[in-house]
């Protein structure tokens, strides 16, 4: 008997083994398990399923103050929605607001102090080092002017008051605010009216006619409720007429009754021409005429400007101008608004037009805004630009709440050459052109108590509390706490300041309080005291100032000192300017407007769907593309005053021929903005993302 | 997929579709199973030799399957389709009858073309001959062409005594060059003696049957002469077209030194051609 195993035996064994395996449950089990495995890949996170709770808060991502309903699982927010009856936002939330709870885990979140070198390299920094650096700067300061500037990105908060008080206690420090959109306008209003007047807000909710010079009414004017007001059509509230005067077809222009494409840079001429048409049509309301003694002077001034040739440059027909003038005169509830980002001359001309049309102190017009009870007067605070050049050793930026951006060039201008440092308190450290050396981690929305003061579509002011809805990160710093640590003083907590504010509201007995639990709007005096108010506001409510009696218009001047010269110069410049081959119009991305950082899911409307023009792309009319020999998706180079930048071409027939439309943001255009501002070229360097007109040449890369 | 398994619906479409599918699967499976079963059965019933020959015969080139009656001059063109089993071939029987009745005669003179053909021997298509001995046994040897090709007896592997041999099944193996070639047995039988060195035959067999049918497929000497000539030419053609350069001036192979004239790399092919191994 041969007992050795032959190859055939082995083969047989293998064959039999395979057959036997097939008959066993093993292969089927493997199949089944592999299928189950593909459904539960270990590297894919599972949602944590826990008790679902609902809470209410106020969105503090921007100053609009929308009411938020928070759905949490296991104590962590999983989705946000608007509060249906909220007086400010009426149940709306913008796309960014819907993602507020994602910001806590943003990839560029800062969780410990960092040092940034060469603009991009980051290393962990020691808190003590940063404090020591600030102290060193402090002790080195000898001159009378402040060496440390504490810059508040969003004044008007309770935190702002803390900052202000701290800065005052600190000999060589000063409080300042970021350059604010519309500040020039406020200053101008004060010049027009001889008596002290408050700030004004447009009463969009009651306006029957809105003439808008590029104002983003449906995508960035307060809360999204403004858009609802403009677009809703009920028998009780017919849709208001909206005339949008804007170079490109923005989202607002798109839904407007009339869109008037205006040559970029000539908006002020257009506004002045309408004003002139109203005056010459002798339709100026007698009340307005009676209040201003210089009506004749205005007529003469406008006549001297010789507007018709300039208007022709606007690309708007005389008939259109007359028609708008007539409508403005005939409609009592009308208002003229300009984009907050519009250049100064546009703001001036629009204000003048409002005065001529008599929209001040009227329902549906420009209504006075009262002061927020208990707020420090930060409106008069100097901006960073107001500090002496090369005087600052340290700039402490409070960016814990998103606010206006400061152009990079300003830092260079204000800091001491070679030794000045910039410390930012911010939740994020995304690459930016701003020369920041240190970032101190701050809390994001939902992690700490703060307050938001907003303006409703009806032009009413409100205060809401943003309550923490998720556990705060222990490694973040409160702005006041950080400054307290630097100065070695103890400060009142945010809550204390907020309580003071609520006490002020209570003592004023003015306005209404919205209670989301009912949901009702009850007058302040119906509450028992500050505690009752506090608890309602804590549960997602908000205070809104009550209906103000329509005040009568005080005496004013159409042409306060300096305005005539300013406008004359601007109109003359418009007349003299030769038309550029192409004009670049940079519009601000509403979703990014007050938000330096995108929530990651914003990719849905940017990278994944093209709903918004991506950064780095410019849109041009197909005929423009053809004329410049570029096509969709081509890489091209944009040359602006010698600065060239790479862009992608997108063809869009809604962009008027001869224009290049781009979104501001952190793409090449922002880069160009910073570069151009170094060369101090025109309005592009302004703090706000103003629609800027730049001669552009375009060629294929 | 299966009734009562999650998600199954008793719709007509489902039933028709799955019915067809399962039918196909079953038919494939059954056919496959059947062939496995059949091959197992034929392995057990010792049909291997028979099947191997059938399979090999099927794969032989047409030139190697020429009918014996061509060599006898009975017919001009005919290829065998009966595995060289003339006993079952109706055409063969018919021609034989015609010849017996004298209606056709061998009109081709028995020319051997230089190969010796013995009148006492019967020839197998696998190039063996067979001679019936008086004691009822037969002796089997290599024919003239084969023995010129296989000159060294030591390369032959002969079967042991008492081994059963089957007609057209391997009888002897030739180990030469890279591949082995087998020589087919002419008839069924049992080995009774193995020839030694110098012996004209290779083995002595006791045939299983001594009836005429057992020898009907073997070539008679008259046919064998033409056949050997034909086979020699076939071998020559095969070697020539293969690019073998060693031929005589007239294009033919030197018959006497056949073994040494076939180059080493063509050896395998030459043996395959001659001994009917495809």
């Amino acid at each position: 008997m041969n007992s050795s195993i032959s190859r055939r035996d082995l083969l047989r064994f293998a064959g039999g083994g395979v057959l036997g395996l097939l008959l066993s449950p093993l292969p089927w089990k493997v199949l089944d398990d592999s299928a189950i495995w593909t459904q539960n890949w270990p590297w894919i996170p599972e949602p944590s399923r826990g008790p679902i709770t609902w809470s209410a808060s106020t969105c503090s991502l921007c100053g609009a103050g929308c009411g938020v309903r928070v759905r949490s699982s296991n104590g962590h927010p999983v989705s946000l929605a608007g509060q249906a009856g909220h007086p400010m936002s009426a149940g709306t939330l913008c796309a960014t607001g819907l993602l507020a709870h994602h910001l806590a885990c943003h990839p560029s979140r800062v969780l410990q102090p960092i040092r940034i070198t060469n603009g991009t390299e980051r290393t962990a920094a020691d808190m003590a080092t940063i404090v020591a650096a600030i102290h060193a700067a402090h002790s080195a300061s000898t001159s009378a002017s402040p060496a440390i500037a504490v810059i508040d990105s969003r004044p008007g908060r309770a935190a702002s008051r803390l900052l202000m008080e701290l800065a005052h206690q600190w000999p060589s420090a000063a409080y300042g605010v970021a350059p604010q959109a519309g500040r020039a306008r406020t200053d101008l209003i004060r010049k027009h009216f001889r008596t002290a007047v408050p700030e004004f807000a447009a009463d969009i909710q009651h306006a029957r006619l809105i003439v808008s010079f590029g104002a983003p009414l449906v995508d960035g004017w307060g809360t999204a409720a403004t858009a609802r007001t403009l677009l809703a059509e009920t028998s009780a509230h017919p849709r208001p007429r909206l005339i949008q005067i804007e170079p490109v077809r923005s989202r607002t222009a798109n839904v407007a009754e009339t869109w008037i494409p205006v040559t970029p840079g000539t908006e002020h001429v257009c506004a002045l021409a309408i004003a002139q048409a109203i005056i010459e049509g002798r339709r100026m309301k007698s009340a307005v005429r009676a209040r201003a003694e210089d009506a004749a002077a205005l007529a003469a001034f406008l006549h001297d400007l010789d507007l018709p040739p300039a208007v022709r440059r606007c690309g708007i027909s005389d008939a259109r101008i007359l028609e708008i003038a007539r409508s403005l005169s005939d409609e009592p509830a009308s208002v003229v608004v300009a984009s907050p980002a519009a250049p100064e001359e546009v703001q001036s001309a629009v204000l003048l037009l409002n005065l001529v049309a008599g929209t001040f102190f009227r329902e549906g017009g420009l209504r006075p805004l009262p002061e927020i009870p208990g707020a420090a007067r930060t409106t008069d605070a100097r901006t960073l630009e107001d500090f002496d050049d090369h005087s600052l050793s340290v700039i402490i930026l409070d960016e814990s709440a998103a606010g206006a951006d400061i152009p990079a060039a300003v830092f260079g201008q204000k800091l001491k050459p070679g030794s000045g440092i910039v410390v930012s308190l911010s939740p994020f450290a995304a690459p930016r052109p701003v020369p920041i050396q240190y970032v101190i981690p701050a809390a994001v929305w939902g992690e700490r108590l703060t307050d938001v003061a907003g303006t409703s579509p009806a032009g009413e002011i409100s205060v809401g509390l943003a309550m923490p809805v998720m556990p705060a990160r222990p490694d973040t710093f409160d702005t006041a706490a950080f400054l307290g640590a630097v100065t070695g003083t103890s400060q009142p907590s945010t809550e204390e300041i907020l309580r003071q504010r609520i006490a002020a509201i209570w003592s004023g007995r003015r306005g209404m309080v919205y209670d989301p639990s009912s949901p009702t709007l009850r007058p302040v005096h119906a509450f028992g005291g500050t505690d009752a108010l506090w608890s309602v506001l804590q549960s997602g409510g908000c205070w809104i100032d009550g209906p103000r009696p329509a005040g009568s218009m005080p005496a004013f001047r159409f042409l306060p000192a300096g305005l005539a010269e300013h406008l004359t110069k601007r109109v003359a410049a418009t007349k003299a300017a030769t038309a550029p081959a192409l004009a670049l119009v940079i519009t601000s991305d509403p979703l990014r407007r007050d938000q330096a950082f995108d929530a990651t899911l914003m990719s849905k409307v940017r990278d994944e769907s093209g709903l918004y023009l991506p950064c780095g792309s410019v849109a041009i009319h197909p005929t423009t593309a053809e004329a410049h020999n570029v096509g969709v998706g081509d890489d091209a180079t944009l040359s602006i005053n010698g600065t060239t930048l790479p862009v992608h071409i997108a063809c869009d027939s809604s962009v008027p021929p001869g224009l290049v439309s781009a979104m501001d943001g952190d793409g090449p255009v922002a880069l160009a903005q910073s570069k151009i501002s170094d060369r101090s070229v025109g309005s592009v360097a302004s703090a706000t993302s103003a629609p800027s007109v730049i001669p552009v040449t375009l060629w294929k890369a | 997929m299966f009734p009562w398994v999650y998600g199954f619906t008793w719709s007509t479409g489902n039933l028709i579709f799955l019915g067809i599918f399962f039918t196909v699967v079953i038919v494939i499976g059954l056919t496959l199973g059947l062939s496995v079963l059949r091959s197992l059965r034929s392995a057990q019933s010792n049909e291997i030799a028979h099947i191997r020959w059938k399979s090999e015969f099927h794969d032989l080139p047409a030139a190697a399957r020429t009918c014996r009656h061509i060599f006898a001059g009975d017919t001009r063109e005919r290829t065998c389709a009966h595995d060289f089993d003339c006993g079952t071939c109706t055409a063969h029987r018919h021609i034989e009858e015609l010849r017996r009745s004298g209606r056709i005669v061998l009109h081709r003179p028995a020319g051997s073309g230089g190969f010796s053909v013995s009148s006492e021997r019967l020839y197998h298509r696998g190039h063996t001959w067979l001679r019936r001995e008086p004691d009822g046994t037969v002796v089997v040897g290599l024919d003239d062409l084969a023995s010129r090709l296989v000159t060294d007896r030591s390369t032959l592997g002969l079967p042991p005594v008492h081994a059963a041999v089957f007609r057209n099944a391997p009888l002897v193996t030739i180990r030469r060059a890279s591949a082995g070639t087998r020589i087919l047995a002419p008839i069924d039988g049992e080995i009774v003696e193995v020839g030694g060195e110098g012996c004209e035959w290779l083995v002595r067999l006791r045939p299983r049957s001594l009836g005429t049918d057992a020898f009907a497929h073997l070539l008679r000497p008259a046919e064998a002469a033409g056949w050997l000539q034909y086979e020699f030419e076939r071998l020559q053609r095969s070697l020539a077209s293969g690019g073998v350069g060693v031929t005589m001036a007239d294009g033919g192979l030197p018959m006497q030194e056949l073994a040494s004239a076939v180059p080493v790399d063509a050896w395998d092919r030459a043996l395959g051609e001659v001994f009917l191994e495809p």
Partner: protein
Amino acid sequence: MVIDLDRCTGCGACVIACAVENNVPPAHEGTTPRTGLTWMRVVRVDDGRSFPDTRSVFVPLMCQQCDHHTPCVSVCPQNAVEYDEETGIVTQVPVRCLGCRYCMTACPYHARYFNWWDPEWPAGMEQTLNPDVSTRMRGVAEKCNFCHGRLQAARAKAAAGSRPLAPDDYQPACVEACPTEAIVFGDLNDPRSTVSAAASSPDTFRLLEHLGTGPKVRYRSRSAAVRESLTRNSVSSEKEQVHG
């Protein structure tokens, strides 16, 4: 569902709300509008008039929830797409999908999306995932299902109150999020519902109605130019006149 195009400003809130509700991951690096995962998408379309009269219309585009002639249901080789007879919603069973993408080829509305990448959330963001909806997975095709998670929750709630599911019991996330209330959701079969009133308006139309797929998402616009530009097909397009 009826979408009033005159009220859509293209703000994208619906797109975001959809992604948050359904645990759709943010874009992987390298994602383009063609490989994105946007169950809900807003497309800007020009109304076809010439400049400067031309207007854009923003068209929120999601699964159109075709009627019984659903192109995607019949093509799926393994019943991973199902038609819910009760609600008329076309549902997707992602765990059964093998990712052959035949349904995507079949869908004329391009409303189906393939998970080209493994879903990736920034660290910590998994805490914000909606617990009522499973996470997405690579290699399967998916689409809008009118917020199946919400429907299931509403069903459970109705069952707990031992009453049948009412059409107003839930609203998809996009409807809830739309700031201008451009999207109306409800029971089209109920003649008294707001949605069926809106659907019967002469301004209402469906996309690619000629194909006979019977979509249950309707669009409306008072502008004839908008209606024309969204219902025209290549037969009457301007391009043809130009290019002959």
